[in-house]
């Protein structure tokens, strides 16, 4: 159990490398990466060992004013942090070198500090420690997003993130105070024991959900996410999407399981619907973007939506007659968190590799990278399959469990209400998952397949060994978690099961699930893999056995040679969906004639398309305008004269006195 302290110390030492002298920049980088790898590795080992056989709590104690306690619910997220931290730190060995001369020491130090802060959030055992660590996490991630402050976009995104995340922190703080004032203590262990009135509980639920949903990037509080994640260096984006978003689930889970008392039906239904709507719209926006990292950021919105949708389903099930099945919704949320953290880390890493190789984020300028970067292409294919939730990848396991939880929800009572809620969940989930498939087909196809769309691609090169190692490990994990999900899910289940003792054990059910002989629900990935590969091998041998059949010839193009510009572009690929969902997306199109002579030839046309996020346009911009407007109104009372201000104080005091006398 003391290994966690070692992790904390190693991260701390890694953070201290930021203080190395300027001449030792590379040494600082290597030290920081080594510290991060070893720290995360130790964390991974420790949390996995505890989850598999440990009892009691992983760690409990205090240091100065900071109290620690890590139970199984924390340990799951420590495991996620350790896993994603290890692979992305290995990747950072090679990737971060490109920041040489651009505050590389600071990057390495902050990287360790970021990992440290996330671990501290997961360990904190009282409100003060939690909020302190939470704030540290917010500030460090702000500094990381702001790392390339010379770029205006990054700078703006960082400040937007800073403002938004503090609104979230404020909401969480209010929730804590409401509960804490009733419980009479700020210690997590006693926080749930206060007797709360329904109004307080409802208010605490709303504020806590708002605060954590903001961090998780759920609608309509997601607007910072697609700006901030792409602005950070790629390995940082990987950690932000892979781990930091999950920490929001950790905090929300603590509230639901421990602090808020018995769950209300409408809480769960609200979380379910908000989550799944985020999933649909996140996937839809991901389909429309051209910036490789924004695509991935919106896909994170989608996946967090699915995670919260499943979690909400669990919450609803807790209030139905079949509450003993509630486990499955929470289990789906946790399993998908783990899988998504690995898959999204992988794809952000490959996005970094692609950007490193081409110096561009715009997928419209790429194409044919698969031939130049074969390793990256294979790893990205695995990650894309995972995020499309195809069978035999980790992504499928979580989504399969989520679907099972929705079925359970729909069948959990005879009433029509739950049935229709289940049907709604099915419709939204189906839309989101099919959109995700389209999004990753488009991403992978446009970037790695086909022909080069611009000169940028021609000098692309394969990444160095450490980047390939990081991506390769993540890709292996995606497959491993998909092919043998049984043990992992069994371990994660104990973490959720501890929260409520009345839930039935799914251990027997699980044997039925993963090895395939049940009548309720079956998914036997090992058998599926065997059958699929046998068929694949047979048909491959039959088809490609005779090489003399194959020869290469240029595509028939009505007598002309096809050019790279005749390929379908990413924007073109998403056109049918853009048109089908234009009532939601409201794309802005402008076509201006630069030269309009003969109607048949020689015209020059400039065509612009933009799809602004509707929540920014319709919600945040008006709020911003209103704030500026009201500020300009308030300016009238700020005249700069001391006498005026003294009179304000007088008036205020008088009012207070009158109020007190009443």
């Amino acid at each position, binding site marked *: 159990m003391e290994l966690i302290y070692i992790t904390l110390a190693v991260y701390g030492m890694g953070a201290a490398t930021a203080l190395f002298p300027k001449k030792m920049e590379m040494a600082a980088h290597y030290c920081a990466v080594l510290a991060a790898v070893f720290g995360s590795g130790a964390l991974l080992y420790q949390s996995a060992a505890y989850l598999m056989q440990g009892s009691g709590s992983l760690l409990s104690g205090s240091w100065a004013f900071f109290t620690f306690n890590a139970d199984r619910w924390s340990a799951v997220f420590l495991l996620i942090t350790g896993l994603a931290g290890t692979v992305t730190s290995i990747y950072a060995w090679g990737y971060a070198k490109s920041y040489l001369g651009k505050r590389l020491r600071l990057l390495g130090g902050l990287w360790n500090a970021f990992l440290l802060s996330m671990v501290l959030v997961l360990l904190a055992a009282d409100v003060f420690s939690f909020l302190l660590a939470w704030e540290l996490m917010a500030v460090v991630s702000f500094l990381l997003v702001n790392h390339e402050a010379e770029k205006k976009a990054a700078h703006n995104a960082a400040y937007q993130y800073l403002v938004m995340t503090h609104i979230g922190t404020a909401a969480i703080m209010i929730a804590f105070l409401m509960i804490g004032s009733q419980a009479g203590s700020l210690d997590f262990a006693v926080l749930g024991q206060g007797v709360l009135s329904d109004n307080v509980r409802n208010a605490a639920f709303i504020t806590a959900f708002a605060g954590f949903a903001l961090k998780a990037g759920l609608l309509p509080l997601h607007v910072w996410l697609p700006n901030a994640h792409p602005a950070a260096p790629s390995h940082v984006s990987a950690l932000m999407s892979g781990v930091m978003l999950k920490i929001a689930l950790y905090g929300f889970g603590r509230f639901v399981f421990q602090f808020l008392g018995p769950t209300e039906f409408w809480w769960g239904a609200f979380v379910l619907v908000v989550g799944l709507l985020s999933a649909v719209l996140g996937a839809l926006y991901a389909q429309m973007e051209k910036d490789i990292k924004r695509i991935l950021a919106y896909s994170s919105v989608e996946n967090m939506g699915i995670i919260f949708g499943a979690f909400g389903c669990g919450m609803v099930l807790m209030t139905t007659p079949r509450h003993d099945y509630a486990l499955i919704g929470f289990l789906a949320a946790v399993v998908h968190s783990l899988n998504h953290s690995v898959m999204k880390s992988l794809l952000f890493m490959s996005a970094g590799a692609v950007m490193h190789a081409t110096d561009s984020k715009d997928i419209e300028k790429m194409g044919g990278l698969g031939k130049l970067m074969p390793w990256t292409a294979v790893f990205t294919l695995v990650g894309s399959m995972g995020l499309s939730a*195809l069978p035999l990848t980790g992504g499928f396991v979580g989504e399969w469990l989520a679907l099972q939880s929705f079925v359970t929800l729909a069948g959990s009572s005879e009433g029509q209400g739950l049935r229709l809620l289940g049907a709604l969940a099915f419709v939204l989930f189906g839309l989101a998952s099919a959109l995700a*498939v389209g999004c990753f087909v488009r991403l992978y196809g446009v970037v790695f397949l086909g022909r080069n769309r611009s000169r940028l691609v021609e000098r692309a090169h394969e990444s160095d060994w450490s980047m390939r190692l990081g991506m390769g490990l993540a890709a292996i994990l995606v497959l491993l978690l998909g092919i043998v999900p049984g043990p992992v899910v069994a371990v994660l289940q104990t973490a959720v099961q501890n929260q409520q003792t009345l839930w039935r054990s799914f251990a027997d059910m699980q044997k039925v699930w993963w090895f395939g002989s049940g009548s309720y629900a079956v998914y036997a990935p090992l058998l599926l893999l065997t059958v699929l590969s046998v068929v694949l091998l047979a*048909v491959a041998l039959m088809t490609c056995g005779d090489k003399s059949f194959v020869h*290469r010839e240029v595509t028939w193009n009505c007598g002309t040679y096809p050019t790279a510009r005749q390929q*379908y572009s990413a924007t*073109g690929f998403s056109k*049918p969906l853009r048109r089908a969902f234009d009532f939601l997306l409201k794309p802005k199109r402008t076509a201006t004639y630069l030269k309009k002579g003969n109607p048949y030839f020689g015209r020059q046309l400039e065509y612009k398309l933009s799809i602004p996020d509707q929540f920014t346009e319709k919600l945040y911009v008006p709020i911003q305008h209103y704030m500026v407007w009201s500020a300009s109104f308030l300016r009238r009372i700020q005249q700069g004269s001391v006498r005026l201000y003294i009179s304000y104080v007088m008036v205020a005091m008088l009012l207070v006195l009158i109020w007190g006398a009443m």
Partner: protein
Amino acid sequence: MAMHIYDLGWMLAQVLLLLCSAPLVAGIIKKVKALLQNRIGSSIFQEYFDLYKWWQKPTILTPYTSLVFIIAPLVYFASVVVAAAMLPNFFGTQFSFGDVFVFIGVLTLGRFFMTLSSLDTATAFGGMGGSREIYISVLAEPVILLAVLVNALRSGSTTLAGMALDFQAVYLSVASVLTCIAFFCLLLAENGRIPVDNPDTHLELTMIHECMLLEYSGRLLAVIHWASMLKTLVFLVLFSLLYLPLSLPLAVKVLLAATAVSVMETLKNKMRLFKVRVYLAAAGILLLLAIVAQ
């Protein structure tokens, strides 16, 4: 129920049966359609001859394609074969390695690779087909899940075998008729039939599925066509087993469903691409009604 080794044998027998009869069913659909349109039409065995013909021809690849282009048809074929193996066993065993969500996922695996291959050809046609395929699949996916939900709610199981067993006890009811119509609409959309897609043309304005495989030739083309025919048969069998509320032998039901496809293709025109949205939404609403009526 435990798994026995002969379960795998029965599964193999079922797959082989479906694989061999898929071109025949496709031929029958074409023949009935021809007869309905006052044509003589080609022989019902024509699809076998076509497959044989493609098998003999050389495969030509464009110089821009990568390995994905070659792998895609193979994965597509394997995924449809696996889906066929997952159908409730005709020979009575209950064993399966996945429930209905895995079934849908496996078919998505094939579609994922086929749409990737359409982008790999580096031509305008391929991408057009892939993009439209994704569009249709996005609209169809929620409706398929709803169709699954109707049966899952009734049977209390998400395995295909459990649902099929339960369905045998169901005869005509409001819910079963509604789901039957809705699933038939889905079957047409999923398999690229009229009114969603036209399987017989290569006109760029109308095609979706055929457009994705325009650059394929030789054995790879044969593999894709065989897989597509098998997929249609798998859907017809699924429709007969889970949604067609008539107590007839399975083979008769499948032939009946195939005839219905021909009738539909004769009566209807292909609809505009953006009307498909309404068509599938209508199917979805029928299913919602069925869920409420159940």
